[in-house]
């Protein structure tokens, strides 16, 4: 591990000041991903700003009737929070589908969103990776790409975002509260993560010295009709090959609102609002779900080892919607 300096911020303003004052600086909270990456020389910050003492560790009601998750609330505390379980069970399920109990106890909500890809080549400094070292090339495109993207990838990067929580939040239309040198701003979760394009080194649209302070959940929680379906290579502690967060509002058998987000298929949680809209006013049924599933993977392109994800995504979407709609076959 390379030497680095360390400060502990006492409030958000100080954290932002600290991160600006130091070159190649990073925030550290749970450290469940950053420390691993530092040990294997993938991330080489010269300065760490410890934000664990900031007062961002509570879950509160918002004025509009939603919940505000402090950036530093742990994944475990979020998933098992009474109000989250009751009003946003989709989020609980998504969080609990990820990592392990030990990691969830340590990892924070904002940290979860900012975890780096699990692409093997990103993790190995003896290989080429545009995300790790821009301009060196993408080893995965011509290498082993079973875990990689089928949607939204570029010729420079085919990595996926590994978070389950982010997929749940994407389906819930969560909002991200950010503080930076220019003050506060809010962005929809769909704008937090980005597609790789020709700057795959950038995972998110956060400004260089910005810090996430909270995640806001709008009132609509889809607590009646939801599911988080995760397909993976073992029953726990494995990243999604394809996951689906689905939420439905159903009245009298008719769908009022549908949300579908995919994980494991792209550089960010994958939403297609125009495909979701196909369900509005329709009856909840396999016949109506199938075209939506097809629309979701339209334009998908696989590589040597991951084309199976296209069909798997289709089937998973249908299954998730059937489960959410409580339709038994």
């Amino acid at each position, binding site marked *: *591990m390379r030497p680095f300096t360390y400060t502990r911020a006492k409030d958000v303003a100080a954290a932002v000041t600290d991160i600006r004052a130091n070159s190649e600086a990073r925030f550290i909270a749970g450290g469940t991903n950053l420390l691993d990456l530092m040990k294997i020389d993938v991330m080489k910050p010269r300065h760490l700003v410890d934000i664990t003492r900031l007062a961002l560790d509570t879950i509160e009601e918002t004025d509009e009737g939603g919940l505000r998750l402090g950036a530093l609330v742990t994944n475990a505390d979020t998933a098992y929070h009474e109000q989250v379980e009751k009003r946003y069970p989709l989020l609980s399920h998504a969080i609990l589908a990820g990592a392990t109990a030990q990691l969830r106890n340590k990892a924070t909500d904002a940290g979860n969103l900012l975890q780096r890809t*699990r692409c093997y080549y990103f993790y*190995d400094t003896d290989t080429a990776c545009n995300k790790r070292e821009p301009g060196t090339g993408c*080893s995965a495109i*011509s290498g082993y790409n079973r875990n990689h993207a089928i949607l939204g990838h570029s010729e420079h990067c085919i990595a996926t975002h590994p978070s389950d929580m982010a997929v749940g939040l994407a389906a819930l239309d969560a909002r991200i509260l950010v503080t930076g040198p220019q003050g506060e701003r809010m962005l929809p979760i769909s704008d937090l993560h980005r597609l790789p394009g020709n700057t795959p080194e950038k995972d998110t649209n956060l400004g260089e010295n910005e810090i996430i302070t909270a995640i806001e959940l709008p009132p609509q929680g889809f607590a009646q009709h939801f599911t988080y379906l995760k397909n993976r290579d073992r*029953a*726990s502690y494995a990243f999604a090959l394809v996951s689906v967060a689905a939420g439905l509002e159903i009245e009298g058998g008719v769908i009022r609102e549908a949300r579908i987000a995919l994980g494991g298929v792209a550089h960010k949680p994958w939403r297609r609002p125009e495909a979701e809209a196909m369900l509005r006013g329709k009856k909840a049924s396999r016949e109506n779900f199938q075209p939506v599933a097809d629309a979701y993977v339209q334009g998908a392109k696989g590589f040597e080892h991951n084309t199976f994800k296209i069909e798997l995504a289709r089937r998973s979407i*249908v299954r998730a919607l059937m489960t959410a709609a409580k339709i038994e076959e």
Partner: protein
Amino acid sequence: MASEVIGKPKNRVDGRKKVTGQARYAAEFSVPDLTYGVVVNSAIARGTIKSIDASEALKLEGVLQVFTHENRTKLAYYDKSYQDMDAPPGSPFRPLYNNQVQFNMQPIALVVAETYELALYAAALVKVEYEQAPHETKFAAQRPYAYEPEEYKSTPPPEPWGSPEEALKNAAHTITEEYAHPSQHHNPIEMHASTVHWEGDGRITVYDKIQGALNSQKYVMGIFGLKEEEVRVLSPFVGGAFGSGLRPQYQLFMAVMAALELKRSVRVVLTRPQMFSFGHRPKTVQRLSLGASADGKLQAVIHEAYAETSRFEDYSEDVIIWPGVLYNCDNVKLSHKLVGLDVYTPLDMRAPGGTTGIFALECAIDELSYKVGMDPMEFRLKNYAEKDQIEDKPFSSKELRECYRQGAEKFGWKNRKQAPRSMREGHQLIGWGVANGAWEATQKPASAKAVLALNGQLTVSSATGDIGTGTYTIMSQIAAESLGLALDKVEFKLGDSSLPKAPLEGGSWTASSVGSAVKKVCNKLGEKLLELAQEIEGSPFKNVKIEEVVFEGGRMHLKNNSSTAIALTEILSRNKTESLQAEADSEPSDEQENYSRYSHSAVFVEVKVDEDLGTVKVTRVVSAIAGGRILNPKTARSQILGGIVWGIGMAMEEYSVMDNQYGRFMNHDLAEYHVPVNADVHDVEVIFVEEKDEIVNPIGAKGLGEIGIVSVAPAIANAIYHATGKRVRDLPITLDKLV
């Protein structure tokens, strides 16, 4: 003699030490003035090192040295000096020997510093330039050049018998298929580590992760020209090894070399990624052609194995003997060829060859049973081997039929519907599969020493190992029973090169080999105790023969009159003797040669497969084992459970991903190299059937380290076929192969 200790489910005698942190592993021994070494590995698979620039690393205060091929110590010249006790034929890899890179992640430098963190940082500053040469790691590309090695490490393929090709042609039912599994890495939780204590006078004490301290000692002596008394190797606890510790690994070389050069104590611990830089279970492709008569009699077997090896050693394992061991067939042809790749030499991994060969054979047999239209278990029983056709010898014992009977009953096999896809629950297709297996029950020469102290404490020792299997416990049990002592009056010592010689701790032969030596030495001590008792004035044991006494409850008494007795401690005290000791060497009996000796298993599996998503859940496993005498049902069960869990991993998860662009294994951590988690393991049942065997060794135990895994993966693959109608012949069976 009534069995008070053997056969009882005793807790591990070292359990308390392990759960309280008192059990020390190779990287945990504190020695004064310790320095820390971090290994730098190559970034290419083949080529020449043009330069290694360590100047930035050496500038750091506290960095002591960066060892490379340019400044290494003088090393032995001949291959023989590098050949350890488990070396396959060939030229063993020599760390830092010259500028040649032979495989990716080859160790090419060692950075030694006053702290681990500093060494790690300095290692990141070492700059290496290569002249890259083309490498070949693609198995399929090299398979056409597969060759028969001049010398097999494993059983050489026997001459064919009968007329296999003709019999195949004439058979009513045939199958010809290829079965494959990828390279797999052992991944014990404890990473390989060596702590070398520089004793100051040229002598070193080495704490090493190894499945046999004597092997490390021999290796170090050979390479560095040290004398036996100059190197002592200790390995009292090993945090899992599964074969990865049979051969000394490069961290031992590195730590010893640095210690000798720097005249300091040095510790080198490999990282998890570095655990993918040496031996592994070789990728193997097997082609099986089987033929059966209309009524299900096996008529032809042609079994060809193609297995990966390195360019410098011919590693081979017993992949193709199993048709001759498990089935009766008059027309059999077996071959085993090696595929040379630019990788490190493969290495024995739990049931090497057996896990591989039995997987392919048991899937093929299953396929044939469907063709014949017979229940897969009935088909196996119909072709049951009454003798071993490889060696043409009868079995010393074989209770496999009983394994089937008890296993099938426990599992409820009779309720199985024969047709694939005939059992379901909603989206879940249910499948039931079976497979059987065997593993060699070998006895090797071993020695032991026993010392009885005046306080009644018996210490027995042998230079074997305990890799978590329970060696400490069962040896203590054997000793306690032999001399009629309570278990807590016995201490067993192992993992020390200064102790009486023992074979490597592997091959499922430790219980058998070391156990026999322990039994023998304790019997010898018993005879000495009788002799000593006879010297006591007025001894009632005068003219008594050893067969006429019994050791029980800390005493020796006459068999026909238990009131004529003397405490063992009294024998010593009456003779004013502080302690009494005996040493013994045990050898396999000549009689063993007349028999084929194997343990056997029958495994029944239920899977539930999501028909849309391809996800598989192994909902039930019943494993029935015939393993001779069970010394300790508790540690024995744990061995089999471990084998079942690993079998689940082999069938569905394990896969060392080779990137052929780099010639490098890429999923080198435990997040991406998948082994089963708790959530993957559901109902598991272990049955030990009774099996008496007085030939296999004096203990009657066959060893359980490997038999637990061999039949599991094929039983799962067969159950998946039964559930889905899809036959997946390349492991692991991941969901994409079923969608």
